[in-house]
């Protein structure tokens, strides 16, 4: 059993490229080139250098002493919150902007939910002097205002998506529409391991730097390269893909995915795709998604904009289906509580997305000697208003 992509662009039965013909040249160009370009030593060098000097990698692997004491296990936080722009998203946008330049693109588009991917894209576009258009759901624009301000500062044009649930799904639709309309000079920087092949694989490879670092950092601190568990939240699944990547085929490393249950699985306001979804096509790939029995994609809900998505990437659909990863649903309330706990115990304000991963410790008991690595995918600066209002601080 392989947990990686096959040469047809599928993870098991999931993946592929279900795209309109208008996107074919763009996606095909990318498909034919991405592995070749990524393998170029020049590309690698430029990518690594930017990750080091600009993004601030390696991100620390921080042993969280007080959190570990509280849950009586050994918890390491992989500090993607310390990356430039405040989340793991920039690993991917750095990679993709270099890819876009290699492919001669002049104009960059992106979708964003929490705004982290939008900011990360606006950032690399400023760095490279490229035009940047970001699509963002109207509701997300309201609940992630700081990130909207940042994108504007960085010179990006933020276009509100007003259809559907006015969140990430709809922003993605709008971005794809833009791409269809601009098939020659535009590269679409997708922000997670979703979309048509080769996006899920390309994004996962750019994010794989995370698990690569975990290996040697754990070696330094624990004397072994393998944790017992890797925990990550899953919106589309890019931070999880990055944190899992080098452990995918090693089943001694147990993988845990935290999904957004919103107000509860049964509440009708949820985004827990593994429980509530089934097979289908979303944004160009076959995966699991939340839908009506007629195949209409349903509107998800999560307090966390970055997890408020009705699907998961095909890699994660496969990990779920095969049982390779354990999926645990976390409600808004559980996540918020876990987020505040991290503030109080470790002095780190996590993104609400990451708080979902943190909430796992209340759901599942680990052994005192278990080494548990948690992907702290982003910082909570963008979420301050939500936290403050929620806790009435």
């Amino acid at each position, binding site marked *: 059993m392989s947990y990686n992509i096959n040469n047809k662009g599928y993870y098991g039965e999931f993946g592929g490229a*279900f795209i309109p013909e208008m996107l074919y040249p763009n996606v095909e160009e990318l498909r034919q080139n991405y592995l070749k370009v990524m393998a170029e030593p020049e590309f690698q060098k430029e990518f690594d250098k930017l990750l080091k000097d600009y993004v601030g990698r390696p991100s620390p692997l921080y042993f969280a002493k007080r959190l570990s004491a509280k849950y009586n296990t050994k918890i390491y936080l992989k500090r993607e919150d310390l990356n430039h722009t405040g989340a793991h998203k920039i690993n991917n946008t750095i990679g993709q902007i270099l890819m876009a330049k290699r492919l001669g693109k002049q104009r960059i588009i992106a979708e964003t939910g929490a705004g982290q991917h939008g900011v990360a894209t606006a950032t690399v576009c400023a760095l490279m002097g490229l035009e940047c258009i970001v699509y963002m759901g109207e509701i997300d624009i309201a609940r992630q205002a700081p990130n909207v301000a940042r994108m504007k500062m960085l010179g990006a044009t933020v276009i509100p998506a007003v*259809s559907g649930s006015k969140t990430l799904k709809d922003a993605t*639709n709008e971005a794809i*529409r833009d791409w*269809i309309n601009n098939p020659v000079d535009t590269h679409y920087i997708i922000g997670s391991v979703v979309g048509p092949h080769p996006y899920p694989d390309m994004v996962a490879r750019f994010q794989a730097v995370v698990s690569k670092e975990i290996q040697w950092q754990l070696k330094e601190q624990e004397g072994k390269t393998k944790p017992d568990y890797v925990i990550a939240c899953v919106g589309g699944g890019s931070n999880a893909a990055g944190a899992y990547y080098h452990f995918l085929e090693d089943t001694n490393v147990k993988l845990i995915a935290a999904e957004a249950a919103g107000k509860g699985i049964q509440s009708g306001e949820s985004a827990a795709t593994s429980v509530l979804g089934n*097979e289908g096509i979303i944004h160009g790939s076959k995966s699991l998604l939340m839908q009506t029995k*007629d195949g*209409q*994609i349903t509107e998800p809900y999560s307090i966390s904009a970055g997890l408020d998505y009705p699907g998961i990437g095909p890699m994660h659909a496969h990990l779920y289906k095969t049982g390779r990863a354990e999926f645990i649903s976390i409600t808004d309330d559980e996540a918020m509580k876990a987020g505040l706990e991290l503030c109080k115990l470790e002095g780190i304000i996590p993104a609400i997305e990451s708080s979902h991963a943190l909430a796992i410790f209340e759901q599942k008991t680990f052994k005192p000697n278990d080494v548990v690595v948690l992907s702290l995918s982003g910082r909570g600066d963008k979420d301050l208003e939500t936290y403050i209002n929620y806790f009435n601080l």
Partner: protein
Amino acid sequence: MNRINQKLQEDKKLLSIYFTAGYPELDNTVTIIQNLEKSGVDMIEIGLPFSDPLADGPTIQASSTQALKNGMTTDVLFKQLKDIRKSVNIPLIIMGYFNPILQYGVEAFSKKCAEIGIDGLIIPDLPIEVYNEAYKTVFEKYKLLNIFLITPQTSGERIRFIDSVSNGFIYMVSSASVTGNSSGFGEEQTQYFKRIANMKLKNPQIVGFGISDNKTFLQATQDAKGAIIGSAFIKHLSKFGTNKIPEYIKQITKL
């Protein structure tokens, strides 16, 4: 012979009309189809609405959202079309995104189409490779023509490949763009129309995207076999409901 192939043999430029089933009212489907045929339209694309129609512009998107709100589902559409062949003879095509069809079951869906008398399918997000590998045999079993798109960016090689797989007509997207976008064709597009015409494909081409009036209809059909109107007709429906369809068609064809 499939009604589409038959129609394509007629010695005229064809006008095909797209509308979203369930819009503006849930039960307008049959009325609209009957009216279109009466108005002299050659072919009809019945849009099965989808929540996330990513190849469509705002007009069709909005009509889809409304249609879903009105209660349109795959089952409802099939029920509405049950007796359509008692009153309508022109080719009928269902245009829809792949996910609703997948959820219905591709075979079940095809069978239902065949029973009703649907002649073909346009599934914009079902790529030709997947079709070939997984669904061709099912569609053929139910005598459904699957219509593929080409765009100005489609390579010559790929156009020939699509032509080889196709078995009816090729849906020639006038410019690479979502529906409802342009207003009149320029030099670039006419060049493209000519280029394709010169390829002497086995399948005739019908031009879609950006046709809204007599002028663009004539431009589009100069070299191609026909043209499809979508967004412009949806706009008409929004204004007049099922009324004045013959008047609308007349001003396009000027016949």
